[in-house]
């Protein structure tokens, strides 16, 4: 880790300004930033600490929407009674993420901005080629150890998987991210790698996440986050699904369905094809399993991650079926 200067911003404005300078980075819970600085991936010249900014850690929820301040802790959001009743998938995505200690440190703003776990990205001293770190240097992952890499949204330049759980739940429910002047859909905020894998978010110099807003809906109220992984806890998803379901008054016909996938794509992945295939249909296991396969349209594997193409549709199907059972 090399020397850097440390600045405590005393207002959002000051933080934005300080962070707009070259080499400056915001510091929230630090669980991603400090980790990446130790790996030699993040080399900030200035760290702008925003953790004590007032008013950015509030959580407010009613039937119409939830607003999460960027500095709200993962653990607080996960445990919030309003989030649990109106947006169970959000709470579940959070409590299944990382570990208790990390969730007590980490903020939801920082969580959206976490970087990929690609081992090649994280080890610059051994793997100099990484288009995400050094545009144009190549991709060490392609042809290497790919068990954790993406099968959806990849490009020739990058196959790194977006590992976050929260954002997966957010894209399912059309959440937005507030950046000061601009408000973006979370789905648009995250970018696919294409030829510019170094650009992961639509965020500009001088912008900072101030809040996340999630519109309320019947589907959000009846939602779940199913995370499958080798280890029961403290591991990123092998495949996960955030699903919300609204049934017609007959109790069996699907009125609204939201499906997003985690652990399999280069960004939080909305699976609209699955939603469209099932809307208006009667919820039954065969139909659900068949439609869930559509989640993998366009999937490309790189060897060891092939299992994700098998696994992810089953995770989607099980999540939908689980919601169907809980009438």
């Amino acid at each position: 880790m090399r020397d850097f200067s440390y600045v405590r911003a005393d207002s959002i404005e000051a933080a934005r300004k300080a962070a707009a300078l070259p080499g400056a980075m915001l510091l929230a819970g630090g669980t991603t930033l400090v980790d990446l600085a130790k790996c030699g991936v993040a080399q900030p010249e200035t760290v702008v600490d925003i953790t004590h900014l007032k008013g950015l850690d509030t959580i407010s929820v009613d039937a119409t929407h939830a607003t999460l301040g960027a500095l709200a802790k993962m653990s607080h959001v996960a445990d919030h009674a309003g989030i649990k009743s109106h947006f169970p998938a959000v709470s579940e995505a959070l409590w299944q993420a990382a570990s208790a200690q990390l969730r007590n440190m980490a903020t939801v703003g920082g969580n959206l901005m976490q970087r990929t776990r690609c081992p090649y990205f994280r080890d610059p001293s051994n793997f100099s080629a990484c288009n995400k770190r050094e545009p144009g240097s190549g991709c060490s992952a392609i042809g290497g150890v790919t068990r954790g890499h993406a099968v959806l949204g990849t490009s020739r330049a990058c196959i790194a998987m977006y590992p976050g759980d929260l954002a997966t739940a957010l894209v399912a429910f059309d959440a937005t991210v507030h950046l000061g002047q601009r408000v973006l859909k979370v789905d648009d905020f995250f970018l696919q790698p294409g030829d510019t894998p170094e650009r992961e978010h639509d965020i500009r110099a001088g912008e900072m996440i101030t809040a996340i807003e999630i519109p309320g809906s019947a589907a959000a109220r009846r939602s779940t986050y199913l995370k499958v992984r080798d280890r029961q806890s403290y591991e990123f998803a092998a495949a996960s699904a955030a699903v919300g379901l609204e049934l017609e008054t007959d109790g069996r016909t699907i009125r609204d369905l939201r499906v997003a996938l985690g652990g399999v794509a280069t960004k939080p992945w909305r699976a609209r094809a699955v939603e469209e295939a099932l809307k208006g249909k009667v919820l039954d296991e065969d139909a659900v399993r068949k439609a869930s396969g559509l989640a993998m349209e366009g999937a490309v594997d790189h060897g060891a991650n092939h299992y994700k193409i098998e696994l992810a549709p089953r995770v989607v199907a099980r999540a939908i079926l689980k919601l169907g059972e809980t009438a």
Partner: protein
Amino acid sequence: MTAHNIRHANTRHADSRHGDASDGAVGGRLSRVDGPAKITGAAKYAFEQQLDGLAHAVMVEATIAAGTVRAIDTRAAETAPGVLLVLTPDTIMEIKGASDWLGNPPTQKTYSPLARTVTYSGQHIAAVVAETFEQAVAAAALVEVSYDETPAIVDLSDPKAGDGIPIDAMTKEWGDAEAAFAAAPLRICAAYNTQREYQAAMEPHGLIARWQGEELTIWEPSQWLDGMARTYAEWFGVPFENVRLVSPYIGGGFGSKALALAHSAVAAASAKMLGRPVKLVLTRPQNFTSYGGRAATRQTVTIGAGRDGKIQSIVHRGVNETAIDGMWVEPLASVTSIMYATPNFSSKQNVVRVNTVVPGAKRAPGENPSAFGIESAIDELAHELGIDPLEMRLINYAEEDPEVNKPWSTRQLREAFAAGAERFGWARRTPKPRSMRDGKQLIGWGVAAGTYPVRRAYGEAVVRILADGSVEVESSSIDMGQGTYTILAQTAAETVGVPADDVVVKLGDSRYPRAGVAGGSRLAGVMTGAVYKAATSALDQLVGLAISDPRSPFHALQANTLVVANGRITAPRGDGPDVSVAELLASVGRDRIEATGDTMPANSTAEDRYKNYTTIATSVPHTEGDYSRHSWCAHFIEVRVDEDFGTVRVSRVVSALDSGRLYNPKLAESQWKGGIIMGIGQALLEEGIVDRRHGRIVNNNLADYLVPTNADIPDIEVISVGIPDLHSSVLGGKGVGELAIVGVAPAIANAVFHATGKRVRDLPITLEKLI
């Protein structure tokens, strides 16, 4: 120096059936006496010492797996802020070759801990020492290395790896195994693989080295103070007595912390070159490449049997990986050759050199992978024959050691099968695979046995009875959580006859009486024997004084009628004097009684003793004399496999274990559970994953190298079925620490087969192998 006594530490538990007095005796369930210090943070680990003038060293590692270092450009690093020293193979002081842990003399006159020829990725090639850790890290990144790279042999499956080197010493044969196999009515043959695994201790490796003239003090977590002190002494050409190793606590070793390593030499050398104490702690990634984990192994197990299930022949072939420039043999037939009675047997083993750090000991080296092979194979055979897998094991029960044809000292394995099966409810198992389920969860029940030899050596200890009636025990052995502080207090308390909370145990400093390695599950047996002997002789002196000293109130009584118990000395019928140990010492004008006890053969020379404590050359074979000595266990495990996801979760474990007499059942149970948990990790999660193009392990951190979390571990029930085994140790115990991991992985693999009908012969059993 770290001392522990039990006062204030012995919290009584509601479930304890005994009061404090019996908890403190040998066999009592005394809680760990070092527990409170660890839980409150008061325990200071080896490299937490604060020394004046401490400088910080950081290693620079090779980023290629094979080749030579062409040049190291240190100019930028040397002028970086705070830098005191940049070491390369050219600039490090001369270090002498040292003998190995078996006591073999050095093969080279000098030793270079920094490599010019690179044989694995992560090998140390340079080091930077600076005023602060951060400065050292920053400067290390400025060291520029250029290489001439050559193709690497990545692992056992690399086409360049070849068949390897036959290890004749591993060959075991009796009868005519090939012919008997050919003639057997039922035959199975299968290949079983285990991957590279790492010890992954919470506490990383590292040390602080300080020279004062020709005297070297090393604070380093260590499983073997005297063995490592010898290495340092030989490296730097100073007498053994000049090296002091201090290791008060060890944050996990699992076999990895018994040897002084290349980075240890670098820290000690830079301290000498600078004339300042130097601290060096390996980063987590470096903990995956600076010393070896368990070698990857491949085995083929071929069994021929009759329709009655009786084994007629076992043919076993094994391979383990080793380093290009270092030899590690993982004895793969160690369980295969003794678990079942077979009239015909053949086993051969090769090692294959690959570009890795030399593999090392991880909990039950040899027995662990060996059991995965034979205990999976016997399950396959049982399935072929339609015989219950537990019944199959009883049909082939070895009544004596089939390899050396000697009786077992004790073998409570049949009792273990019975007790485990009963508690687990094995009789309710439906034999057909996929026949038990709970919704989407396929349920499987598996069984497997395990064993570990009783490794023995000689030990030494000092026991003092002090003026206040308390007892002090000293030994340079160590406690890495297994309970040495506690059981030695119990041993001294019971032997002298004082309450356990009047005993202070001092360990972890090589200035104390010498001790051999805390490895091979042997330390408890060795040290309780030595303390028992020293304490007995201290007691004899005490009683002798009571009888013979004219000032003693017991003067004129017969020695054999005095009783020392609970810190008081009495004549048996209660009609004589009743005084405390402290009062007796005061009355005879003594401030202490001191006794050194050792279990070395009577005619041992100073050289024999030195060898006993600083090498493993003198350990006593477990089949020496009339008996074959082993610990035994049987694991019954339930798994739940999600039929959509292929995820395996262990939902129930019942294990019955024979470790002979338990010096402290509570601590033994904890160690058994720890072994079982590590076995669950091995079965389901652990695997060093190598990038085949770079020959480098990529999951070299604890987020990506998965070990079980609490959520992965169900309630584990352990049952002791051991009986005292006086052929194995002075007080009747056998090994505890390594035993319980042996057999866990095959029990899980067998359960997974029962759940799914899929036989996974390649650990770990990750979800993609089942979907």
